[in-house]
């Protein structure tokens, strides 16, 4: 008769089993083979805008699916990753190319949520359960999920009642809001330096009927909200920014605000993002649906080459690989005539992403803003010559959907610097006033600080990509002016400024 195991031996076996399980779960589990691509397929022959309630219904009508396609990319070889879902789309891959995330809808009438595709034909795993739905996933350096929520209305996604914001979902499913602007934040992607790049409304365009979009960045904790590219010129609509190894950020840009705009592929160089906007390809692309960096500097694009001749009907978009320096579009890399391929993401290891250790202090309800020189303005900014006449700075906050309040006014130091404590996580704006209380310059509520964040700026309408001069600001030696209590904000704001 075998001897029963001693307690210590049993303990050891438990530890060994635990180690084996952890080894399996960490490294030995199945993953997607690199070399393939994740593709969004939309059924052909259906109207492009009929009956869509929200933005994703418009992009991915019922029956849309996410599939895995592997070389040699033959039509009909797709492996469905979103099996069992009513509709799916918007796949993204992790930096190591082994994870695929996408937005999906379990049933018609349900909400869009983020799913993770499972290898081996298993059903996709639900990652989010967010009221209002979630879309446009991205992955941070540590594997944490970033997404956009709520899913905006299809009619006018950039002027909704409740603007879409970016969220981060950490371990244990804890969801943290990252953006706090007055206008929506969408299309997040994570840059190699760890920042989250996304689209939002340019400050100069806030309040316009048809807002113009720009590219912005935040740290992975929502701090350091910064305008990244696209300012006063070019197409108003921007989608799907993506960084390439060659130092370009590519994106889709369209000139109209219609239901199905014609998106062209454009790019800016990281080295000078505000002054390098150019078409990405040497040939004309009118209807580009997605753009991702592929191997050896080429691009993977889903383009509607106009074969159907009926842009109002889906059915002619396919996946193209476009090598650098191509003069013509070439033939599709993958095209299933029964489907419209609208998004394609290559599965391949990419450069590792940097992380960022948060400096937030959740126990605080305020942040601090240090302006180095309020008299400093970029020459091309409106009223820049009047910047030297600035007498006081009024700080505004968007306390509610239509509630604009003035937190107070402060007088800059003689060197133009000021240091002020402001409420955290509300849209903040600034008005520069002259000695007659006339507004010289204005930034409508569009920026924010997070709890405990120390934020700096060079000046009012500061030049982009500019380093500060090495001067000790007078305000840094003084206690901050406290305007951090939103409840004490009582100064009225004239209706014309709302």
């Amino acid at each position, binding site marked *: 008769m075998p001897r029963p195991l001693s307690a210590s031996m049993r303990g050891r076996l438990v530890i060994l089993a635990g180690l084996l399980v952890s080894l399996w779960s960490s490294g030995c589990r199945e993953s997607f083979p690199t070399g393939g691509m994740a593709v969004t397929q939309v059924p052909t022959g259906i109207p492009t805008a009929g009956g869509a309630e929200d933005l994703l219904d418009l992009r991915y009508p019922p029956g849309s699916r996410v599939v895995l396609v592997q070389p040699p990319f033959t039509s009909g070889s797709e492996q469905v990753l979103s099996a069992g879902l009513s509709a799916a789309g918007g796949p993204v891959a992790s930096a190591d190319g082994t994870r695929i995330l996408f937005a999906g809808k379990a049933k018609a009438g349900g909400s869009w949520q983020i799913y993770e595709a499972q290898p081996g034909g298993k059903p996709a795993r639900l990652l989010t359960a967010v009221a209002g739905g979630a879309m446009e996933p991205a992955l941070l350096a540590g594997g944490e999920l970033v997404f956009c929520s709520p899913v905006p209305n299809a009619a006018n996604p950039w002027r909704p009642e409740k603007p879409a914001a970016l969220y981060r979902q950490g371990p244990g499913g804890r969801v943290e809001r990252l953006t706090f602007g007055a206008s929506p934040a969408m299309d997040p992607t994570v840059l190699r330096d760890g920042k989250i790049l996304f689209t939002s409304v340019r400050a100069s365009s806030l309040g316009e009927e048809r807002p113009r979009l720009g590219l912005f960045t935040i740290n992975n904790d929502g701090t350091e909200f910064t305008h990244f590219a696209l300012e006063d010129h070019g197409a108003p609509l921007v989608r799907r920014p993506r960084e390439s190894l060659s130092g370009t950020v590519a994106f889709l840009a369209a000139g109209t605000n219609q239901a199905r705009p014609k998106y062209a592929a454009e790019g800016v160089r990281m080295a000078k993002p505000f002054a390098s906007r150019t078409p990405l390809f040497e040939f004309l692309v009118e209807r580009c649906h997605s753009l991702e960096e592929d191997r050896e500097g080429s691009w993977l694009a889903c383009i509607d080459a106009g074969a159907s001749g009926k842009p109002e009907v889906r059915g002619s978009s396919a996946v193209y690989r476009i090598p650098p320096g191509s003069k013509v579009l070439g033939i599709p890399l993958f095209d299933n005539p029964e489907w419209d391929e609208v998004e394609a993401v290559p599965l391949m290891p990419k450069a590792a992403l940097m992380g960022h250790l948060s400096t937030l202090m959740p126990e605080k309800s305020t942040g601090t803003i*240090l302006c180095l020189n309020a008299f400093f303005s970029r020459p091309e900014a409106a009223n820049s010559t009047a910047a030297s006449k600035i007498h006081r700075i009024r700080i505004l906050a968007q306390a509610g959907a239509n509630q604009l309040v003035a937190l107070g006014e402060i007088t800059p130091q003689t060197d133009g610097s000021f240091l002020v404590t402001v409420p955290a996580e509300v849209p903040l704006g600034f008005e520069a006033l002259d000695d007659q209380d006339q507004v010289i310059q204005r930034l409508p509520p569009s920026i924010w600080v997070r709890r405990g964040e120390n934020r*700096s700026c060079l000046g009012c309408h500061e030049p982009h990509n500019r*380093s500060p*001069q*090495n001067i*000790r600001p007078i305000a840094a030696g003084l206690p901050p002016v406290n305007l951090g209590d939103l409840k004490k904000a009582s100064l009225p704001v004239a209706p014309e400024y709302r």
Partner: protein
Amino acid sequence: MKQSTFALWFFGCLAVALVAGYGGHAWSVAHVRRWTGRPELGFTTCTHCHVATESLAWSKPRARHPAPAGLAVSPDGKKAYIALDEMNEVVEAELGSRQVTRRLAVPGRPFGLVLDQEGEHLYITCRDADRVVAVDARSFKELESVAVGSAPVAIACAATPEGERLVVANSLSDNLSVLSASPLKELARPQSGREPYAVAIARDGTVAFAANRLAVPENYLAPANSELTLVDPRSGKMLIRGTFASAHLAEGVATVPQRSWAITPLIKVRNLVPITQVANGWVMSCGLAISDHRGNIIQMPLDEAHDYFADPSGIAVDPAGKRAYIASGGSDRLTVVDLDRLAAWLEKASPGARREAIEDLTLSSEYVIARIPTGRNPRQVVISPDSKWVLISERLDDGVLIIDTATLKPAGRIALGDGGSGDPIRRGERVFTDAKYTYQRQFSCRSCHPDGHVDGLSYDFDGDGIGDNLLDNRSLQGVAGTGPFKWIGKNPTLAIQCGIRFARVLMRTDPIPPRELDDLSHFLNSQPPPRWERKQHADLTPQQERGKRIFFATMTTTGKTIPRERQCHTCHRPPLYSNRLSSSVGTKGPHDTTDMFDTPHLLGVAFTAPYLHDGRAKTLEELWTTYQTNDLHGVTSYFNKHQLNDLVEYLKTL
């Protein structure tokens, strides 16, 4: 044993242990209080005061690596000469075969190299021996040597109407040595800025440029300027002291034929701006200083809006004056600058645009034409006389990379060693010099601690609020055994000091991974105080002896007893000259949150200006003149000026 006997034995032992433990604790506390004169202190470990330097990592033998320092190429472009300072060797290599062909033992840490115009003589600076050695390039044998200033690191050679001249940068004595080549003789030793580190002579031999690495301390709340020293290489006469405004760490300089320029890669610092972010070069960025022969200097950016090229070091300009090649030691890149494009931009730019150019991070794309990847920590650059090849020392990979200037691609590599990956100190040095741990690769540990030393600046970290606790940068040379770290003595180990905290307040990325942090600690602990070996064997002068007596004095010259806690050697206790405890010495500033500051060690204190936790004291003298409060920082009110000078002179020997 009966149970009752056992219990008796057990409790007896316990009682003895308790009594002994309590007694030992009480004795040790009394001992500490007695010898520090501070009744508020509790238990502290013995090693706060009782340390043997022999036990410290920096005093132990360490592995030496064939890390390339200075480079030179023969006039026919066939041979390269490479100084291996750690190995006390200079080697000759064939560029064609990429093989080392001859080796020459050169004691005293050979560092800088230059060939004369005919390629017959090789001149070598010996950094630890304070000498310049002349070597016959044909026989590869030493001919003669001459004494120069302290720690010579760089040397340049040029023909002048008065004969061939050599100019040497003496990094620790803050001066230059001007030598005649034949006979090898020092003609003059003009003063330079702080830490001259690179020299170049204009082709016509009328002016030599010396780039100085550190700023001379001034008001700690004003921008720190370093110096470009212009001297006449014929006579050694000082011509002009140019200013690198708010910039420093110049480790290379090259003159440009066809244009009256000298170009110096440097770091533009922004230490006066609170570090609320590092994006947009908020803490520092890299640039080129372009000086004419009258010392007028324009600074141009080398970085890009979202990518940085940290720790620019060596520079070479081709003989036609068309291109400059700059090594970025922190980002492992060689940057190629088109000088015609640069000149064109300068020509059309307004004076205001030129003045502000260094702040515009989008500008470098106007004239940078390539960024070429290199091995680890490229530092020195030299170009062959026929302009075909650029050689770059890959210091922490023990190799020299050869770039084809026609294709701007690597053409080969001279392997000098295996890279030393098995040595934790070498691995730690790689961590120390690599900018990949900071946001957008903006800077490395070395950017603030060149050679593990200081940059002489104070910084405002925002972790404790904007404007509070301005912190002077402390040297890492001799840091082993001096914990805790940070000016308020908060961090018990280097790993804690350099780990999560730095990632959060400075690097703005994920922390350095634990294994690499461990390597980094190995490297930091291996850094000896400057000139330690030499100081151990040096006799004190009479003035220094008098200073020593003051340092260890227990009574004033008038016979009054100095309280124990205010005797210099109580807090600055040998051999590290620190008891590693925090003290209040009356230096709390208006924005400090405490008046208790960590007692810094004094090894190499002569080279670590400025002083005090916020760097407010420019010199050692100022500690007891401008910033002494009620004799709290040692009893010095009885000093006359001679006694103060004696004390300072003694401190400089530590």
